[in-house]
């Protein structure tokens, strides 16, 4: 049975059906991401002074991924335009470029950005112990300047066995540069380039520690919302890539030969989804990486 109105428009709506379908789906997606963004706002407004971290993500890498996603949005719309002009070869190359962009985006997320976080540790100090570690925190100067206090010392954990072994009394942290020179005004704002932990090791006694966690979703409301939103976004990128691969394979060429306008409409619908995924990232990037 032929599905009606896949190419021609319905007289009452003036649209072919899949287009209405994808927009209704995108409307539900707006609600899904809207719920998560409103949770983000709520968590952020509710964070106590010093609880909402800044500058923990790699800005150049995030910027590159943003650019990749924007370029893929351009290539997918060019792929669709190529189909409209009945240039299948050009379509094939634009589609391949789109798929590659999506794959690179996911690769950077899953093999570079996320794993790095799971190997980085933060030690939250008890309020009574903050003064003791003033040399790493620089809170006296921060209070004078009206800035939020630092309540966490972060870096590379040199003795991870200390987390489970009660006989070890202190954590050895290879400090992030900011804690080596906490009173340097250049450390007041996040740096653009990523700076790895130093060899400067701080010994932090366990009895002074409220909790120690890697930079996973369990670390803070910030990382919980970061992993939830970027994870869901990544799942959307993956879904888009899979659909684009189907559109790019020879099976779609058969559809093109049968009815090129049908394939063009399919690509338009997937393209709308892809632009939405790009649109979500346009907000995710500044909210988590920059602000």
């Amino acid at each position, binding site marked *: 049975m032929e599905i009606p109105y896949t190419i021609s428009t319905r007289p009452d*709506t*003036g*649209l072919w059906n899949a*287009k*209405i379908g994808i*927009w*209704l789906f995108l*409307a539900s997606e*707006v*609600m899904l991401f*809207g*719920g998560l963004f*409103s*949770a983000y*706002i*709520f968590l952020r*407004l*509710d964070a106590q002074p010093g609880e909402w971290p800044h500058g923990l993500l790699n*800005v150049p890498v995030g*910027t590159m991924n*943003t*650019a990749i996603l*924007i*370029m893929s*949005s*351009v290539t997918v*719309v*060019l792929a669709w*335009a190529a189909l*409209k*002009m*009945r240039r299948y070869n050009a379509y094939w190359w634009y589609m391949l470029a789109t798929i590659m962009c999506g794959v690179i985006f996911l690769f950077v997320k899953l093999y570079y950005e996320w794993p790095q976080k799971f190997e980085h540790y933060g030690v939250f100090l008890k309020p009574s112990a903050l003064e003791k570690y003033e040399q790493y925190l620089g809170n006296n100067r921060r209070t004078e300047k009206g800035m939020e206090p630092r309540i966490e010392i972060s870096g590379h954990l040199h003795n991870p066995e200390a987390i489970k072994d009660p006989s070890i009394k202190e954590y050895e942290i290879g400090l992030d540069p900011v804690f080596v020179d906490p009173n340097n005004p250049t450390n007041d*704002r996040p740096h*653009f380039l990523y700076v790895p932990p130093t060899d400067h090791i701080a010994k932090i006694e366990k009895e002074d520690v409220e909790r120690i966690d890697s930079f996973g979703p369990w670390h803070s409301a910030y990382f919980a919302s970061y992993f939830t939103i970027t994870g869901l976004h990544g799942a959307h990128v993956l879904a888009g890539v899979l659909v684009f691969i189907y559109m790019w394979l020879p099976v779609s060429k058969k559809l093109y030969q049968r009815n090129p*306008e049908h394939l063009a409409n399919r690509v338009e619908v997937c*393209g*709308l989804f892809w*632009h*939405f995924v*790009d*649109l979500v990232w*346009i*907000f995710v*990037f*500044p*909210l988590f990486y*920059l*602000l």
Partner: protein
Amino acid sequence: MNNPPDISQDPAEHEEYAHNVQKHVRGYLTVGALLLAFTGITVALSYVDFGTRKANIGVAMLVATLKAGLVAAIFMHLAAEKRLIYRVLIFTGLFVLALFWLTFLAWYNPVVR
């Protein structure tokens, strides 16, 4: 304006049509370049101190909204779309505002720590 019309079945008109779509393609490339430029601007502005963090967030969200507007209007063809789609989106906007409003209400009922 954004939607190239369907291709003509008449071969004589085909070339003119292709030329027409080509004009749209130039528009898409321009918008892509603008989006990349705005991304650079967003990053640069985040290192400028606008006084308070709220001001910095406001500026960044303004640029993000501009970028999102470009994507929606040009790439998603919303600058010239059928009325039914606008209707769907108006309701979406209202519902998402209601959702944010619920969060706002929760702000007045804080969990006491």
